[in-house]
């Protein structure tokens, strides 16, 4: 049985994305990997550049800037925010959850549900599902969903898959209403494939013997156990098989079809992959926005970043079908309607949290 869910009392009332200031031209990797390899990867992935954080800038810093912007643009009363969720694989600390850091920085009071969700590329879909569930099942009225990832910090500098990733943060504001257009979800997970995308060390499984030494792995890339590993062929196969299957289950569960939607927002992992999924779903690429050429794969933020890139400050409503898929393995399909006036353009920030140090005193 496919896990599905429908909400008729939740509205996505605002969304904005933030990228770091540092722009990286992926052709610059030619010095490291050789220009033939670099051109081949750019051609196959479609990713020409990305934005990467400064060393002292975190995913939560990007999310903080995005949240402040949304609060300002939407004139949100901070005391009305009842839920703060931070979805990321790149927290500020091992513990506590980074959502508490953001609650403090954003000045949100104690009458609030605050926690992190450890997910990556499927994070925006699962974050929306969790947010909608929390608002629906409590007296909470509105919440901030903050999604941020800084994959550049975990990929080895000597790993060619480095050319696929970028960093970004996003904030989305959800409100409970008496009536709203439906928000629908279909969700699936497969722990059997948890090693397909993994940062092996840094938790408590491999202590104290995890080495920082970088060695050549079976895929020909040089990395340590503290670096991100992605099993390219398996993840690609997953995206081509399991993701279209979930779309099909989503359509049959809700009695919908591809033609019912204005636009398909796919996780921006790889252009080749996006085109194949679109082809399998029978939708033309004119309805499938692409942002990875400029921003790369920024993990859980690619869906909000692509929405902002495509629809910012336009008139009218748009009926979106979307899918995020990746680390876990975890994948989800969601649909909702958003007023394009509530979509804000992408901005850039190098802001960092000055109060993040911990005193030993």
């Amino acid at each position, binding site marked *: 049985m496919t896990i599905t869910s429908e909400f008729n009392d939740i509205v996505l009332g605002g969304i904005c994305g933030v990228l770091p200031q540092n722009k990286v031209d992926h052709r610059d990797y030619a010095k490291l990997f050789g220009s033939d390899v670099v051109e*081949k*990867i750019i*051609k*196959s992935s479609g990713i020409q550049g990305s934005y990467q954080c400064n060393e002292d800038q975190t995913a939560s810093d990007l999310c903080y800037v995005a949240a402040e912007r949304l609060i300002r643009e939407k004139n949100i009363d901070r005391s009305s925010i009842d839920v703060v969720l931070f979805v990321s694989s790149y927290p500020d600390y091992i513990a506590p959850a980074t959502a508490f850091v953001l609650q403090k920085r954003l000045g949100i009071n104690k009458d609030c549900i605050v926690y992190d969700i450890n997910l990556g590329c499927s994070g925006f879909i699962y974050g929306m599902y969790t947010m909608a569930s929390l608002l629906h099942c409590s007296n909470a009225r509105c919440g901030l969903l903050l999604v941020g990832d800084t994959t550049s910090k975990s990929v080895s500098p000597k790993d*060619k898959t480095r050319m696929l990733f970028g960093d970004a943060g996003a904030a989305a504001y959800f409100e409970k209403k008496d009536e709203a257009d439906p928000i629908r979800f279909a969700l699936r997970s497969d722990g059997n494939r948890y090693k397909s995308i993994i940062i092996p060390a840094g938790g408590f499984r491999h202590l104290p013997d995890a080495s920082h030494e970088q060695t050549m792995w*079976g895929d020909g890339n040089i990395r340590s156990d503290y670096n991100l590993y992605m*099993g*390219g*062929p*398996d993840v*690609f*196969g997953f995206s*081509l*098989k399991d993701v279209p299957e979930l779309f099909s289950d989503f359509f049959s569960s809700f009695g919908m079809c591809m033609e019912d939607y204005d636009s398909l927002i796919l996780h921006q992992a790889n252009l*080749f992959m996006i085109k*194949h999924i679109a082809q399998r779903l029978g939708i033309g690429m004119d309805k499938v926005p692409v942002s990875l050429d400029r921003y790369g794969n920024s993990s859980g933020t690619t869906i909000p970043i692509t929405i902002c890139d495509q629809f910012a400050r336009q008139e009218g409503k748009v009926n979106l079908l979307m899918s995020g898929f990746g680390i876990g393995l975890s994948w989800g399909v969601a649909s909702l309607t958003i007023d394009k006036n509530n979509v804000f353009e992408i901005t850039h920030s190098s802001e960092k949290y000055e109060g993040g140090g911990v005193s030993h005193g």
Partner: protein
Amino acid sequence: MDTAKKIELLEDMFDMESGELDVNAKLSELDEWDSMAKLSLIVLMDDECGKQLTGDDIKTFETVQDIINFMG
């Protein structure tokens, strides 16, 4: 599917001229056998042969003939 058709599909995938692909060629010595070719092969296996190709399957391939055998 006959062997000639399989070779034709692989030559298309590798962007090779007709007759250029040697079925006995070792993949490790083939310039065209890169990460992109592996992704393309996953798509080809699914679209043309209805087979799910995994990373572990790919690791067992030593020659072009091994790929042809997998195509069924």
